[in-house]
């Protein structure tokens, strides 16, 4: 086994986990961040012929840390990497042929095949969620939703689908679109979620699109709020795209049910105490005086000829920004392991981790 060592270092060097992760995300629009992370890690394991358990775990840990550091918002991603690491450790600790006493090559083959199975199951979970969540969309109701969540889209589409169940649900959708004007890179880009809007309209579902500022105004006409999530944290709250928290607050104030749709592999072991306790840096609130604005503009014009540095320097709004919706605003979480109350999330997480 020791002979494999020089080959290992050579083979693992060129493998770029960050690039792989980004490629995966770009190539498959249906892929969520945690799954992309797991897939990237599985690819890493296939590329690097590590020969011992500790070597594998060490490699995994290093690449995970590297990946987390190079992605601006690693919350959703860390759900996947943590889960995969946990899965590896429990598999390796299990007694028997696949335990520490067994043949390592067999263990590795088993791990890889199981990981692929895991990824496939995770992709299927969206359909499962749609089946659970269908009952929350009633005939004649109006659903308010936001963002570009693929799970929400698949849930709504399945509810509208004739073939999906006994009969199609007739419902209206109020879609909250965030204005993309803050995005300097592509000011003409269409807002996130437009694709879903088109798909729903094609299925005959009446969709109204409103800006974020009209949420409070429109919420009176909505019966239920359904949102997606980037990560579900330990206390049952969610980390989701910026603007979800205010919808949650408004829904609570107006007494409308607020449902979150998320796959269970999005459960993260993070425990934020509030908006500013998230383990990421985001400069949403950026105080400036006129002087600072002027200097920033000057710098921008100076470096205008060198492309790449302009992005985000003066942006008033970050399209990737997230906020934290605390658990007391959430009525229920619709996941592939059932419809959970926020307090049941920690139970699920503990079950995974211990």
């Amino acid at each position, binding site marked *: 086994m020791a002979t494999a060592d020089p080959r290992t270092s050579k083979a693992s060097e060129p493998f770029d986990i960050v690039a792989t992760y980004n490629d995966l995300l770009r190539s498959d629009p249906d892929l969520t961040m945690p799954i992309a992370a797991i897939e990237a890690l599985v690819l890493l394991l296939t590329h690097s012929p590590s020969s011992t358990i500790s070597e594998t775990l060490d490699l995994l840990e290093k690449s995970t840390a590297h990946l987390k550091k190079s992605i601006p918002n690693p919350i959703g991603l860390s759900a996947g990497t943590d889960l995969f690491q946990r899965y590896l450790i429990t598999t390796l600790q299990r007694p028997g042929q696949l335990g520490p006493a067994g043949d390592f090559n067999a263990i590795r083959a088993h791990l890889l095949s199981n990981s692929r199975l895991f990824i496939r199951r995770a992709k299927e979970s969206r359909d499962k969620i749609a089946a659970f969540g269908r009952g929350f969309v009633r005939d004649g109701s109006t659903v308010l939703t936001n963002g570009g969540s693929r799970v929400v889209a698949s849930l709504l589409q399945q509810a509208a689908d004739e073939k999906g169940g006994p009969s199609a649900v007739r419902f209206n959708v109020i879609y909250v679109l965030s204005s993309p004007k803050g995005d300097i890179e592509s000011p003409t880009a269409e807002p996130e979620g437009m694709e879903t809007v088109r798909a729903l309209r094609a299925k005959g579902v009446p969709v109204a699109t409103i800006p974020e500022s009209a949420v409070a105004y429109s919420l009176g006409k909505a019966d239920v709020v359904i949102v997606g999530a980037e990560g579900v944290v330990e*206390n049952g709250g969610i980390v989701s795209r910026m603007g979800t928290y205010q919808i949650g607050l408004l829904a609570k104030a107006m007494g409308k049910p607020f449902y979150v749709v998320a796959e269970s592999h999005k459960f993260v072991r993070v425990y934020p*105490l509030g908006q500013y*306790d998230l383990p990421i840096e985001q400069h949403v609130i950026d105080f400036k005086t006129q002087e600072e604005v002027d200097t920033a503009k000057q710098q921008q014009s100076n470096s205008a000829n060198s492309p790449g540095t302009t992005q985000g320097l003066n942006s008033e709004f970050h399209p990737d920004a997230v906020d934290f919706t605390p658990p007391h605003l959430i009525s229920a979480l619709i996941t592939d392991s059932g419809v959970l109350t926020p*307090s049941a999330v920690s139970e699920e997480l*503990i079950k995974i981790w211990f």
Partner: protein
Amino acid sequence: MANTADPTLNPVSAPPAAPESASKKTNAQMEQSQSQPQPQGQKAPKPAKPAKQQQPAKDKNAAAAAAASADGAGSDKLSPAELKKKAKAEKAARRARERADREQTGAGGGGAAASGQGPGTPAGKKGPDAGAAAAASGKGQKGIPRRGSAQTVPQNGAAEAKKKQEDKKVAVFGHLYGQQRRTTVAGAGKEVHPAVLALGLQMRDYVVCGSSARCVATLLAFKRVIEAYTTPMGTSLSRHLTTHLSHQITYLSTCRPLSISQGNAIRALKLAISSIDPSVPEAQAKSTLCEFIDTFISEKITVADQVIAGSAAQKIKDGDVVVTFAGSSIVKQTLLTAFKQGKKFRVSIIDSRPLFEGKNLARTLANAGLEVQYSLINGISHAIKDATKVFLGAHAMTSNGRLYSRVGTALVAMSAKERAGGVEIPVIVCCETVKFTDRVALDSIVVNEIADADELVVTEAPHQLTDLPDPAAAAQPEPKKGGKTAASNPSPAESNTASKKDGSPLTDWRDTPNLQLLNIMYDVTPAEYVDMVVTEMGSLPPSAVPIVHRMSTNL
């Protein structure tokens, strides 16, 4: 009634305890099973006649209760509901007695009216001593005043004295006044190990105070007990050591009611003892047990504390103002850990009478170099104004996610949550899983601990500049520092001595009518006011407490 199988401990279950408490307990049971309030005048050292008559009834009821409790814990452990019922019964009994007294002193018409209320009970036919028999018959709830009035005739004086004494118990918490805390080691069983004897008094005097400290001290004392133990002839270690330990536990619980953590640790130890194979040689079994105790302490408390301090310290950010209440050792460790990590934050310690546990914490933190502000709970609204986080220690976490901790904790947590500014301050509880319990607490009345009310009376009078000199100082060290003060006003000092010596206007509260003192030890913080519980198994919302408790006890 005696059930050795029951691993839980109860202070009242002490077999050699005073006969009074035993009879009281049986009485309480009788009241539960028949839902018939019993005049309290009958329950304690009494004229022989009613007591004797009650004897068969008592036995019968005891047997019935024992049979009814299938799990075998019936007589030992009163569930909160039962406790409440008991308290209610006692209250009803007291009211009845008072009414009876009034009737007796007043007109006889009242008594007749009361007897008329008895539904279906021919109270009038009963003689004066038939009243006690009614207890066995189990009918006629309203017949009690009548019976009481009939019986008070010979025991008027005694009842009067008793009433005076019992009035000093605050009614709502009546069920919590168990035995008086032990004041000496006299009367302790000969089986009790000297280390345990000492520990008991230390716990009584709050020398060993705090849930974790008491748990560790108890385990260490039990380690010495086990080391000094030899199995008597004809028994096996796994069977006899448990009963031997029970004597120690009983003694400890008479010094101060056992904490949840102590209970959990003892339960684990007893389980370890009973799972020892009888064929294992004694020396080996003893060393196994000592090892078990050491592992338990390090795993559940020492290392757990380090883990908790580490993860709780992560939550402290630069510029934070951390509010804490009283003196929790784990909070202290957390703050010190965060300080060592170079975080810049301020600590505001809120303390309360009579234990002043925060003083030690304040000194330790200040000595370590932290910026500390110390205030009493009266100033809570001021102290909470600039707070950004609240860290709390715990005595226990109940299964409904509520925090059971030193009295005043709930006030701090609620002030943090309901602060006028509208911005919520996160309330973080640091708690080892050994403090988790499967009990449920809805309020702080059913389960609590009452300490000696005299603790509230004693205060060290501050040195007063404007007042007269301290009488003790004025009387004795005349030549030493008396000089001007003693010469200026010796006579007013003399006249004031009586009130000064007492120190506090409450000193003779026992003889003051209409005055009750309540020195409650704990309170319950609702789960909504707790944002996060940091345990050695990770950070949890309070709702996850029962799950983790189940897991940590099953492991």
